[in-house]
């Protein structure tokens, strides 16, 4: 239990760092979504299923898609302008 917990925690931090460090926007958004997913697993393991559901649905689901929609809009604006 404890070791699995630690591994997932390390993954969470690694994904968050990768999202900040990488130059590739797409990978950054995906890594941010993965951070949310791993964090929600941590929440379940810490017996907070309510928070975990919110984190999984909003943190790793909706925000990722909204980021992609926004990125596409920004790229289109650059082409036009």
């Amino acid at each position, binding site marked *: 239990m404890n070791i699995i917990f630690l591994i997932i925690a390390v993954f969470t931090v690694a994904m968050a760092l990768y999202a900040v460090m990488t130059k590739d926007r797409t990978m950054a958004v995906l890594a941010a979504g993965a951070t949310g997913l791993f964090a929600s697993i941590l929440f379940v393991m810490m017996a907070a299923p309510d928070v*975990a*559901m919110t984190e999984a649905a909003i943190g790793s689901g*909706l925000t990722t*898609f*909204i980021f992609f*929609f926004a990125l596409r*809009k920004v790229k289109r604006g650059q082409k036009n302008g």
Partner: protein
Amino acid sequence: MVKKGFILLMIVALGFMLWDFVGNYSSKTELADVSSHYVEQGPEELGAANVVTSVVVTYRGLDTLGEVTILFAAAAVVGLLLHLNRNENEQRREGSELLKTGTALLFPLILLFGVYVFINGHLTPGGGFQGGAIIASAVVLSVLSDPNKKAGHTALTVIESLSGLTYVLLGAAGAILAVNGFLDNRILPLGEYGSLLSAGLIPAIYSVVGLKVGSELSSVVISFKGDSKEEEV
């Protein structure tokens, strides 16, 4: 060079400030006064099997109302800003066959699961916000699989406004009819502990919150998708 020095200084200062929390951390073995009241008296007072729900909806109901208001403001601003420069006639590439078939299968199931989550908010983990977010993720799926579909923006706005109004009215009814003021759930009988129709007003309030959050997040997603051909009212 000076800038880097400042950054280093800030990090060290922050570490110094936070060291106290980390160094002297010891996990608590018992709850504080208010929390233990919620945990011990909550099920008895409010009849909700999920203690988190009884805190979110009733004890700290005003905070939830504030969160819903913030979400409403965010959705309204997103809609307003993206409404200004939308591109009406752009044709979007359709989703692949796999995505379309998968969506046709999963969309109703995810929607149903969202409704299940917020109706059972007082019994099982989850509630209005979680259920609403799940509903919005179903909407994301349908938007991805068929981007050219007309979005029922008007219907979403109507659902959102009506459920928001109902939420406030239910809270006000608690203030007038029940003992403990705004958002008290005991104006309906508490019912049998652990059954679906129990915990007084909580299922009603959570359903309304779920509808509101679901329609708000969906309208945010649809606004971001762009070219939503709004039905003229």
